[in-house]
């Protein structure tokens, strides 16, 4: 097992472990921190996959943005040390069952199909990237920031200008929505 593979398994265990703790721990603040760890782990996974830009965005947006937002909201709505209420036993049972069954189903189906690239791509060997295939377009700078930037603002085939603009509009709308709702309405408390 190479270091790279070891790295992967450690990251994976970290991601899953932190994720599991994030959804099970009784303290809400700890839960948020475990989430933070899990998300950071995922950023690590992106690094491991040589998708540095995505990893960066992951850290900036998720870790830097969303988790902070969540922690703020926890402060706004909760006393930090408070224990979370325990869900009903039946619900835990059914949820666990659903999650396990779902996982079994989904993973069986994923395993059942041997993912192969479409015509032209280098086929996987035993599910792993072929030795030479690693040096694909990605290696040649496909996933480089410059490349991503160019494509993001291109209106041609393979360009992402339209989604970019749409997302900007979406963010604007979301912002308006947040402000309107979270804003204290003066007359509300009369």
């Amino acid at each position, binding site marked *: 097992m190479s270091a790279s593979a070891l790295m992967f398994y450690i990251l994976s265990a970290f991601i899953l472990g932190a994720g599991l703790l994030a959804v099970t721990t009784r303290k809400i603040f700890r839960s948020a921190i475990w989430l933070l760890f899990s998300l950071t782990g995922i950023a690590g996974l992106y690094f491991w996959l040589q998708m540095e830009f995505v990893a960066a965005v992951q850290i900036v947006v998720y870790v830097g943005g969303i988790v902070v937002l969540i922690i703020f909201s926890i402060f706004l709505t909760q006393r930090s040390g408070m224990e979370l209420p325990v869900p009903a036993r039946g619900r835990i049972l059914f949820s666990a069952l659903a999650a396990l069954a779902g996982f079994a*189903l*989904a993973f069986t*189906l*994923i*395993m*059942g*199909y*041997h*993912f*192969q*690239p*479409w015509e032209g*791509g280098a086929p996987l060997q035993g599910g792993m990237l072929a030795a030479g295939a690693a040096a694909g377009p990605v290696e040649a700078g496909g996933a480089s920031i410059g490349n991503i930037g160019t494509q993001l603002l*291109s*209106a*041609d*085939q*393979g*360009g*992402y*200008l*339209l*989604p970019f603009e*749409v*997302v900007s*509009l*979406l963010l*604007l*709308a*979301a912002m*308006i*929505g*947040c402000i*309107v*709702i979270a804003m204290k*309405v003066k*007359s*509300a408390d009369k």
Partner: protein
Amino acid sequence: MGIGLIAGLQQELAVVLIVIVLLFIKLGSDRYRTETILGLVNVLLGINLAAGLMMAPTQTVLFGGGFHTNELIILEKNIFNLGTLLISLQAYDWLKGHKLALEFYMLLLSTLAGLFFMISAGNLLMFYLGLEMSTIPLAALSNFDLEKRQSSEAAVKFIMSSAFSSALLLFGISLLYGATGTLDLGTLAASDDNLPLRMAGILGSTGAHALLVFAFVLLLSGFAFKISVVPFHLWTADVYEGSPVPVTAYLSVISKGAVFFAFIQVLYTTFRPLARDWYNMLVLLAVLTMLTGNLFALRQDKLKRLLAFSSIAQVGFILVGMTGSPTTANASVIYFILVYLFSNLGAFGVVAVVSAMTGKEGIDDYKGLYKTNPFLSWVMAISLFSLAGIPPTAGFFGKFFLLMSGAGRGNYVFISMAALNMVISLYYYLRVIKAIFMDANDHPIGRLKISLLPAIALMVCVAGVLLTGLLGWVYDYIYSLSANF
């Protein structure tokens, strides 16, 4: 590129432009009279609708396949422009007393733009963006009865459910992407690597069918969530009940209708290789949806909740129509959505007026309404008859054609189930009619003075309900457009 771009995106741009104008107004001053703003917005929406109607029929593909449009899609967008205008007119009374009218419109129109992008989406990314864009602001809008606890509850249910749903949808998309390597919806004939071809290409290999079906089910659940197909419908009633009436109307008509358009395109183009699977799935879901919607509607005491379940049942009927041959399915579904828009907005319009003026929303509150408000009563009655599929309202034609489309496949057991449900549904529509026309009430809703704009909207709805059916060319026009589809 430029002119073509603007021409192709005209409807979206118009909507976005209105949003921006409103934003500037908001930023510019906060000493405006709400009535003026409402008038202005409605005029703008009217212009928007007119512009959309006058738009030259084009068939364009823009942004390398991210956006496409054709006559049918233009028509669909015009339908939604009309619907939005009607909702806006009906919301007049409610918004007049609301401090956040501008924000309401900004959010509402953003979702409209999102829906437009969604119907025009050429790939799954744009589809997803459009879907989210039509969901997130709507969740905020659900919360717009800021002082009502139910409104917040509805918003929370809506946003959390939709987050869950879109997560599942995304999981499905990711699997699809993994299996085929493309996000192209396959709506573009020019593209040689579009999804159906690749799907068909890999269907033979081991496990591919199972995986694709799984991905499809996940994708379907995303659609089904938005259009409230059983068992993905559970949020619907609660959110409809808690949201402000115009938002409910918007949710039940515009947002649902648009997703139907997208859904039908995805079914008949993207997932054509899986047609036999999804046909059976649709049959099953349609029956479940009709039955569940109707059975729940039977026991409702609140009009909004009743209409929520009724709209679920209607979805079942639309699914029946969707199982037909591509052309008839497309034509009958689009036609029905047009009809449904008028009918449902007629009903919600009355609810909106009554709710805004008296705050009453229970069926029992409507007892004796005819004595005091004959106009509202007739609008309600005609709309409900249309929803129930009673001639001469357009609902009759709409349902007839939906079922006729579905019957084209020869599955008459299925059609019988649909027919049975038409009978069940009649019961609860008639319950409302009974309350309005027959039941005595010591304290009926007083004589309401309806503002001009809502009155216009209601009359348009009634006219639409009566005319879209009787004038056969409406359907024929839609059919002719669908034939090219």
